[in-house]
C-alpha cells in the first residue's frame, strides 16, 4: 500500500556509482596489507581445521586391534602433547604476524590532507579545509580524495556511536561522542568505493552509506575548486520557482545552500548536491525522479529519518527537484 509508491525510485537504483564494498576488493594501502594478513590467517586456520577433522574421522573409523591398550595410551599422550605444542606455535606465529601488520599500518607517513568527518543519525558530513578557514566547505556522504596521497580523517560523532568503514580502503574505526579518533587512508587506485556505518546506531543504521571517490590529483583539485565555489544560480523558470519554494518552505530551516538565505545546519549541505552520485546516504541514485520521490515522502523511503514529510503540491515538488538537479 504505502510501499508501492516507493518502488519505482527503488527500481531505478544505482548501477554505475556503487563501488564494491568488500574486504577482498582491496584498493587502499591498508586494505591491501589487511587482505594479505586475512587470507594468510584463513589459510593457516583452514589447514588446522582440516587436520583436526581428519584426526576425528580416523579416530572414529580406524580399525581396532584387540590389545593396543597401554602402548597406544602412551603414544596418544605424546601425540596430544605434540598437538598442544603445535597449537602454541601456530598461535604465536599468528600473534606475531598480526603484530607486524599492526605496526606496518601505524607507520604511515604524515598526512597530506586532513578531512573532518562528523557522523550523525543517519548520514555523514565531510568538512574540508578545517572548520573556520575561508575556503572551507562541507559535503555529505561523498568523500573525494586524491589517489596515492595519505589522507587523515578526524572522526567525530554528534550523537551516538557510529563506525566509519570503507572495506576496500581500510579497516573500520568508531566515531564516539566525546572522543576524537583518526583513520588514515591511502587509495592506491582511482575508483569509487562504497562504505557503510558498521556500528548499530538506531533506526536507519542500514541506510547510512557513503562513497569514497579516489581520483587523480588534478581531478580532485578541480572537484574541490568547484565545491568551494558559489552556488549555481537557477536560470530556468522551473528552477527559479523551485528556489523560491525551497526558501519559502521548511527546507531552508535545516539545509544550507551557500550564497542563499538557506543556512540550516541540521541536514546536509546542499550547495552542490547535483554533483553527488546518491542522495539520502546512498539510498537512492541522484536523479530528478528520486529527488522528487525523496522530498515527497522521506519517511516511507527511510522510516525514522530526521527529514520530515513536507506537504507540497506536485508543481512545487517538480520545481524543487529541478532546482536541486541544477545545483552542480
Amino acid at each position, binding site marked *: 500500500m504505502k*510501499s508501492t509508491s516507493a518502488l519505482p525510485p527503488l527500481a531505478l*537504483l544505482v548501477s554505475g556509482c*556503487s563501488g*564494491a*564494498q*568488500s*574486504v*577482498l576488493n582491496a584498493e587502499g594501502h591498508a586494505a591491501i596489507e*589487511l587482505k594479505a*594478513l*586475512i587470507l594468510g*590467517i584463513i589459510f593457516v*586456520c583452514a589447514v588446522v*581445521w582440516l587436520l*583436526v*577433522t581428519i584426526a*576425528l574421522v*580416523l*579416530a*572414529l573409523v580406524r580399525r*581396532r586391534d584387540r590389545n593396543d*591398550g597401554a602402548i*597406544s595410551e602412551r603414544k*596418544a*599422550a605424546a*601425540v*596430544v602433547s605434540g*598437538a*598442544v605444542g603445535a*597449537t602454541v606455535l601456530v*598461535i604465536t606465529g*599468528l600473534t606475531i*604476524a*598480526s*603484530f607486524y*601488520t*599492526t605496526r606496518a599500518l601505524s607507520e604511515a607517513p604524515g598526512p597530506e590532507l586532513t578531512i573532518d568527518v562528523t557522523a550523525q543519525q543517519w548520514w555523514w558530513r565531510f568538512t574540508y579545509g578545517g572548520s573556520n578557514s575561508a575556503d572551507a566547505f562541507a559535503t555529505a556522504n561523498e568523500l573525494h580524495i586524491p589517489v596515492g596521497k595519505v589522507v587523515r580523517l578526524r572522526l567525530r560523532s554528534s*550523537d*551516538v*556511536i557510529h*563506525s566509519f568503514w570503507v*572495506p576496500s580502503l581500510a*579497516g*573500520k*574505526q568508531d566515531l*564516539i*561522542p*566525546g*572522543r576524537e579518533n*583518526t583513520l588514515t587512508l591511502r587509495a592506491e587506485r582511482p575508483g569509487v568505493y562504497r562504505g557503510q*556505518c558498521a*556500528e*548499530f*546506531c*538506531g*533506526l536507519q*543504521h*542500514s541506510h547510512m552509506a557513503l562513497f569514497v571517490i579516489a581520483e587523480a590529483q588534478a581531478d580532485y583539485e578541480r572537484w574541490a575548486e568547484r565545491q568551494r565555489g558559489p552556488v549555481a544560480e537557477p536560470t530556468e523558470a522551473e528552477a527559479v520557482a523551485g528556489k523560491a519554494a525551497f526558501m519559502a518552505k521548511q527546507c531552508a530551516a535545516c539545509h544550507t545552500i551557500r550564497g542563499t538565505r538557506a543556512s540550516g545546519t541540521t541536514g546536509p549541505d546542499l550547495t552542490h548536491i547535483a554533483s553527488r552520485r546518491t542522495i539520502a546516504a546512498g539510498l537512492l541514485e541522484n536523479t530528478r525522479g528520486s529527488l522528487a520521490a525523496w522530498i515527497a515522502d522521506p519517511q516511507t523511503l527511510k*522510516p*525514522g529519518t530526521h527529514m520530515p514529510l513536507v506537504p507540497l503540491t506536485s508543481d512545487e515538488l517538480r520545481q524543487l527537484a529541478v532546482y536541486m538537479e541544477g545545483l552542480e
Partner: protein
Amino acid sequence: MTEDRKQSPLMDDRLDDAELERHLLQSWQTPGGIWKALATVDHKTIARRYIVTAFVFLILGGLLAVAMRIQLAQPEARILDPDRYNQIFTMHGSTMMFLFAVPVMEAMAIYLVPLMVGTRNIAFPRLNAFSYWIILAGGLLLWISFALDAAPDVGWFAYVPLSGPEYGSGKRADIWAQMITFTELSALAVAVEIVVTVFKQRAPGMSLDRIPLLVWSMLVMAFIVIMAMPAIMFASSTLILDRLVETQFYNPAAGGDALLWQHVFWFFGHPEVYIIFLPAAGMVSTIVATFSRRAIFGYLPLVMAFIATGILAFGLWVHHMFVVGLPRLGESFFTASSMAIAVPAGIQVFCWLATLWLGRPVFATPLLFVIGFIVTFVIGGLTGVMVASVPFDTQVHDTYFVVAHFHYVLVGGAVFPLLGAIYYWFPKMTGRMMSERLGRWAFGLIFLGFNLTFFPMHILGLLGMPRRVYTYQPDLPWGGLNLFISLSALLLVSGFLVFFIDVLRAWRSGLPAGPNPWKAATLEWATSSPPPAYNFRRIPVVDACDPLWMHPEELAVTAGLRVDRRELIVSSVVEALPEARESSPRDSIWPFWAAIATSIMLIGSIFTPWAVVWGAIPVAVTLIGWFWPKGTAEDAS
C-alpha cells in the same frame, strides 16, 4: 540434640529397602497439587522447569531469527519495519543469551550436579526455587514488553549513548536493563548453590580428583558467574541510574565516558561465552567417555584446561573493542591473551579426540551431536583466533563474519553438546528413551542446516555486509547468499522441529529406560530413572573416578542417616571425608512470595526510583518468613 537421641529417631540402617523407600518418600516427596508445586524445592523438579522454560525461550528466540531471515531473504524487503526489526534482533540476542543459554546450562547443573556428586538435594534448595521464579519473571518482563511494542531496540549489548537517556526514548532500555538484573540475580544464586554443593555435599570418598568432569566444568562456570556477573549488574544498574535519576556515568559532557559502558559490559560479556561453553565442554567429556567405552583421556589436563579457560576468560574483553581507538600497545596485549585461550581449547579438543581414538566408539545420537560439535566448534574457535587479531578484526568487526563466528561458537560449541546431553540424560530425567531414528534425523538436519545457514555468513562479512541491518540494497552483491541462508535456515528449523517432536513423543510414550541404559560410569546412573525425590536410597561411597565401571555389580553405600527428616551428608572440600549429617530444607512457599516481592520492586524501579525504598519492605518481610524456623525436624541439631 540429647532430646533427639532419647526419642531415637528412625535411622536407615534399621529398615529394609522397601520400608526405607517408603519413609524416605514421606520425608522428601512434594505432595501433589498446584499450591504444593509452587512450594517444592526438589532440585530435579526445579531443574526440569528451568529446562522447559529455557527451551520455550529457545523456541521464541528461534522464531525471531526466522522473522529476521524472512526479512533479509531479499533486498529492500518491507516485511518488517526498522523499528520492529531492531526490537527483534535485540530480543533474539537477549533471549538467547540471558534467557536460554545461561539458564539452560545452569538448569543442567541443577539437575545433574547433585546426582553426580551423590547427594539428595542441591545446597540452598529454597534459593534454588527463588532463582527459578526470578528468571521466569525476568523473561516475562521482556516478552510482555515485546507484546506491548516496548521491547528494547538497542542490541543485546545496549551501547550507550544509543541506550542512554538522550537517545533511548521510552522505557525500552530500562526494561532491558532490569531484565538483566533479573537474570543475573538468578544466575548468581545458582552459582553459589553449585559451588557449595560441589564443595560440601560430595559423596564420601569423592576427593577432588574423582569429581566427574561435568561437575568440574560446572564448578568453574559457577566461579566465572560469581566473578563476572557483578560487572553486568553494575553496568545495568548504572545505565538505569543514568536514565532515571540522572547520574552521569556515561555522559562525556559531565566527566563520564561512553567507552566505560563497553569496558564494563564486555568484562562480563566475554566470560559469558565461557559460562555457556564450559558446561558444554563438561557434557562433551561425559558423552565422549561413555560412548568410547573407556575413561576419559587426560582427566587432569582437562580439569586444568577448564580452570585456565576460566581465568583467561577475564583477560580478553578488550578484543570486542578493537575499533574504538584504544592505544595500539594495549590492543596487542589483548590479541595475545585472546589467542592464548586457544591453547586450553586445543587441549580439550585433543583429549576428546584421543579418547575417541583409544576407545571403541558407539555411534549413538549423543555421540553424533558431539562429533558435530567438534567439527563446528573448531571452526568457531579458529574464527575466534582470527577476530582476536587486531588488524583482522578491524575489517570483520560488526559484520556478518562475526555473526557467523559467534553462532559457530555458541550453537556449534554449546547447543550441539546440549542437544546431545538432552538425548543422553533424557532417559534419566523422564525414565524414557528418545528415538535413535528421529535422533539421527534431528542431528542430520540440524548439522546440515546449521552449516548451510551460518557458513555463508563468513563470506557475507568479508563481502562487507554489516550486522544489524534491517535491509540492504539490491545493487549490493549480497542478495543471492542471503536468500540461500534464509532457505537453509528452514532446514535448521525443521531439524529442531524433529527434535521437539521426538522429545514430546518420548516423554509420553518412549521406551522405558531402566537405571543405566548407556552403561555409563557416573553416579547419576546408580539410581532409578527418573530418580526418586530423595535421589539415592543410601548415599554412595566413592573410591574411583568411574565408580560404576569399577564396581559394576555392587554399590558401596553409607548407613546411619535419619529418614524422619531430610538428611544428607556434608563432607570436606578436598578429600570428601564426611563431616556432618546435615538437614536439607523442606518445601516452602516463601521463595515464591519473595520472588514476587522482588519482581514488584525491580519492575517498579523502572518507573520510579522510590520503588526501591517501598519495594524493599515486602522483600524483607518475605525473606524473614523464608528464614524464620518452623520447628520441623530439619531444625534439630
